């Protein structure tokens, strides 16, 4: 009996250490492209085009200098932040009103919510050509021009991102509002505050962590978005993803500056995942687990 227990614990121990080996290998695989991107961004052209690839090299900041100098990458970061902040602001305002309504009153017995959610499944490519034509024509009107809604203007991209962000944001905030106890709002109403005050003074503050998470999701959706940005902007309103793809030139791909630009584009999102992991897990797994 004792030997059997001894044997099985040895076996368990071996299996347990194998588990950790497997996890370590997996982490290495998942991190390799990110590590390689950062490494490449600090390599000189000769090291980038070395065969076989070099692991140890003398780092250089030349790629970053080029990306922010000649390639003017800083300007595209500003553009991206403008679009992301603009779209996120609209998404949070419009989305929180709707999400609150869905969570509290369920208007139309869920049909309106279902309708909004189905637009989440819509392939962006299906609307990109009509949107291209709509914004081209809007840009020629005086109102559209004032609101910067034309092609290669930030307004058009803000609207496009808002439409594609809104369903997910409503879905996310809807669950956070459901967690706010109804009784607190009713207490405020009994104390004589109006419904809209109860919404702003009670529901919004209590759901604010969820609203913040939604805002961050929305911001990074815009930050990473490529298809709309590529079709709707040319140069003046170009965003970072389009700019990163712009390092493919007639003379070939400028791997070093591209890696530097990609690193700048990716680092904020990595920090966001590491710092806010608990909320992200909740945001992503919602709906899958009751």
């Amino acid at each position, binding site marked *: 009996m004792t030997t059997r227990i001894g044997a099985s614990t040895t076996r368990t121990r071996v299996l347990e250490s194998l588990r950790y080996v497997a996890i370590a290998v997996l982490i290495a*695989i998942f991190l390799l492209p990110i590590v390689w991107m950062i490494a490449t961004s600090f390599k000189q052209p000769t090291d980038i085009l070395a065969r076989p690839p070099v692991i140890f090299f003398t780092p250089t900041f030349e790629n970053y200098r080029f990306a922010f100098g000649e390639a003017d990458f800083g300007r595209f970061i500003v553009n991206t932040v403008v679009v992301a902040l603009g779209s996120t602001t609209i998404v949070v305002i419009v989305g929180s009103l709707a999400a609150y*309504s869905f969570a509290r009153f369920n208007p139309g017995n869920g049909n309106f919510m279902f309708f909004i959610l189905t637009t989440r499944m819509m392939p962006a490519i299906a609307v990109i050509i009509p949107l291209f034509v709509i914004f081209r024509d809007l840009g020629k009107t005086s109102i559209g021009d004032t609101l910067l809604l034309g092609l290669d203007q930030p307004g058009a991209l803000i609207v496009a991102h808002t439409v594609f962000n809104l369903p997910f944001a409503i879905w996310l905030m809807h669950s956070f509002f459901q967690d706010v106890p109804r009784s607190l709002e009713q207490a405020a109403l009994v104390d004589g505050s109006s419904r809209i005050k109860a919404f702003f003074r009670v529901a919004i503050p209590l759901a604010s962590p969820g609203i913040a998470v939604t805002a961050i999701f929305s911001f990074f959706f815009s930050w990473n978005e490529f298809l709309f940005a590529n079709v709707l902007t040319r140069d003046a309103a170009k965003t970072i993803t389009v700019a990163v*793809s712009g390092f*493919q030139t007639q003379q070939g791909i400028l791997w070093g500056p591209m890696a530097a630009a990609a690193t700048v584009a990716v680092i904020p999102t990595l920090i966001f995942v590491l710092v806010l*992991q608990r909320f992200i897990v909740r945001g992503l797994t919602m709906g899958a687990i009751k």
Partner: protein
Amino acid sequence: MTLTDEQVSTDLTSRFRVSDRMYPYLLITPAMIVVGFFALYPLGYAVYLSLRHADLTTAMGIGEFLGLENYHFVLNDEFFWSAVRKTLIFSIGAVAIELTLGMAIALLLNGMRFLKGIARSLIILPIAVSPLAVGLIWRYMYHADFGIFNAIVSTFGIPEQNWLGDPGLAMASIIAFDVWQWTPFVALIFLAGLQSVPSQVYEAGAIDGASFWQSFRYISVPMLSRAIIFVSLLRFIDAVRLYDSVFALTAGGPGTATEVLTFYIYRLGLRFFRVDLASTMSILFLYATIVIAGLALRRIMIQQSELAE
């Protein structure tokens, strides 16, 4: 205007009653306007374009009404069907691998006794990164001459490959990239599902002598069925729409080996400006997505009502 007894009996609050009823609708109005105008109007416009001759390279632009002629043309276009086939090969291949690997990783993580939090944090990093930016890095890593993948495979004695330039390999290379980016998401959802299964259930199984495989098959899988359906649906809907990774890695090439549907639509509509044909394909594509998603949603609902019984 005459009032019914019921209305008279609530006369004091009737003014508020009306606005009580309208209040929820008032709150959702801005969202409905945004989604309605900028999602439904473009769709309507796409339908309109699909029924006409529209070639933006000619002076005529949007031309005569053709009825369903564009649909007839597209459904008989061999390139369209080839793009559909590639989209399905990509989607089914990528999602199947992601589900299998994701489940394996979730099981590995779930059994960890220490460092679980750190391991999870590191594994989910690919979820957040821009597929376009990192896709371009993968293109460099796939490079036949100075890519790191060829350096890695050759240390294992495998001959070097032209990962993105070989028509037989390019699609698999795109799938590998998608698997890298999305398996962590699938694993994360399965892990959350596994953690929500009460440990007593497994303990009861262990007392009854269930093997690892049996407790997986008869406890984990049924308990995770909702998560499995949810994640398959979500991944599949995203996979058929892939664009960024194809743009970054192959731009549809070599030849048309990786020209999936979104890319074919893009090329036709925004390179050759045949917006009529591109819109027709978009509408067919959207219709197929809705049908597939609708069928899947119905399955989830049926399953849930069975669970409720």
